[in-house]
């Protein structure tokens, strides 16, 4: 394995690290590893580095990089939102790898905002043959609502909290309870440049159908931190009209935090995604 630092694009280059396997097969896809939130390209708890090196062990080249304005990449001029600029910047990275290495197929990986960017990029670029997401867009189902309210119905604490929330709305008591030191902390916090907004479910259904008809493989992992996700098959059930068949590899790590802080979950995530990537590569090779 060899790693190289790269600067892609001008005049304000995107900074990244290419992780190369011992032997590079340009017929195999390369993986683009996206930022999560405002964390720089090593990823939450260094997860992106672990993934990149695991991919290298199975002969897959990857690049982990910073979108403009995140990590080591400078901001770029223009007033496009992250959801608009991220796919375009991802295309730049793909163009770079295609020009420099001759690689023409790509797999995308992202957590949270990175997951959103992976989906949006896949929609606009047919070189994307697969993507892996952690805590992707998700939508509640009737079963979710049933499980959610059933769990709370018999908990006195939930009723107490509900009363408190109702009282807060009436009397605006909450605003008096922000400690002064918290206000000061906020003043020195870098504001998040991207506020997650889930698209209408029908838009996602259309998008997913299009991707499935293109033969795009999807690996999606939901964690227990995703408030709107409550059981393993919820995603599939949310989109019953989408014929995922074997294109969707869905997992639910209900005990995991959103940024995968537990070491056992980190190992599990790396293994799950690497195994899936191996499967995708073998499927692509069979298609050739």
């Amino acid at each position: 394995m060899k790693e190289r630092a790269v600067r892609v694009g001008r005049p304000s280059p995107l900074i990244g690290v290419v992780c190369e396997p011992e032997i590079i097969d340009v017929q195999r896809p390369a993986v683009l590893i996206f930022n999560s939130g405002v964390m720089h390209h090593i990823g939450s708890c260094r997860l992106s580095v672990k993934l990149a090196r695991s991919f290298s062990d199975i002969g897959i080249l990857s690049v982990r990089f910073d979108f403009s304005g995140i990590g080591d990449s400078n901001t770029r001029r223009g007033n496009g939102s992250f959801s608009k600029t991220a796919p375009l910047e991802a295309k730049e990275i793909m163009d770079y790898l295609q020009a420099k290495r001759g690689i023409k197929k790509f797999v995308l990986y992202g957590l949270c905002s990175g997951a959103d960017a992976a989906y949006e990029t896949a929609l606009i670029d047919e070189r994307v043959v697969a993507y892996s997401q952690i805590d992707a867009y998700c939508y509640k189902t009737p079963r979710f609502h049933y499980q959610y309210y059933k769990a709370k119905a018999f908990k006195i604490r939930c009723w107490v909290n509900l009363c408190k929330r109702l009282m807060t709305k009436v009397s605006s008591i909450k605003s008096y309870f922000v400690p002064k030191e918290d206000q000061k902390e906020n003043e020195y916090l870098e504001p998040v440049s991207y506020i997650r907004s889930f698209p209408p479910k029908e838009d996602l259904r259309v998008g997913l159908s299009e991707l499935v008809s293109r033969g795009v493989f999807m690996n999606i992992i939901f964690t227990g931190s995703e408030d709107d996700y409550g059981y393993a098959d919820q995603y599939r059930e949310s989109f019953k009209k989408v014929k995922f068949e074997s294109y969707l590899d869905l997992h639910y790590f209900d005990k995991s935090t959103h940024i995968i802080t537990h070491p056992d979950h980190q190992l599990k995530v790396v293994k799950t995604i690497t195994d899936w990537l191996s499967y995708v590569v073998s499927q692509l090779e069979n298609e050739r």
Partner: protein
Amino acid sequence: MTPFFFGESKNQLYGVLHPMQAGVKKPAAIVLCNPFGQEYMRSHRAYRQLAIMLSKQGYDVLRFDYRGTGDSALNLDQVNAHDWIDDIGVAIDEVKDIANVEQVNLIGLRLGGLLAASACTQREDIKSLILWDSFVSGKQYITELESQIEGEGLLSVNGELNSNYKNKSGIINFNGFSLSSDLQKSMKILNLMKMKFSGKKSIFNIISHEEAISFSFIEYMKEKNNFQSELIDAPHDWNYVDKYGGILLPQPIIQGIVNRLG
């Protein structure tokens, strides 16, 4: 700004060089020494901003990742604090070559301060050392971590598996990063009050909140005429974890360091 790998080919370190941008080139370069774990994640932006501001003052500045962290080679269970002190030495040699200078200033935040101070005692080419909310000892750091995980159950209030715990092998897992027993042991040996600094180096101790002031350390160092300490009130919750990887930018301290070296 140039990202690059340097050092031994089998154990490469990742660094980002900020070459001097304006004015008169300073005769000494700067190496920034990272804190550990989630503190490193949360301070990444602050360090970047500090490096940019210092480069505008005429300094060549190198930020880098220790082995087992960031983009550098190896995993955390393969390294210890002595390796990290060696890595600081490699970074110093690298920036001296690139910048064509004979001396370097070291800046270290939290554990980075302790590591930078250790490197400082081993070399004659350090012009100054800036400690930013540094631990006085590695033992203090480990004790702080252990006190934060004490009493935590298997599951958090949200039903998630608790990520902050000490396992049966003695490994401390904290906010997504694991400290092996070897790493902890090597950290515990480090103690600012047992280090011998030569009189030529200037040492500047910046503290962001009164609770962090170690009067015993300040008393110990005060006798040396090259030591100064200053309280600059600023946010310091480097271990806070949220869904976005919230970034802390304590501007008063960043500006205070720039003013100090400018």
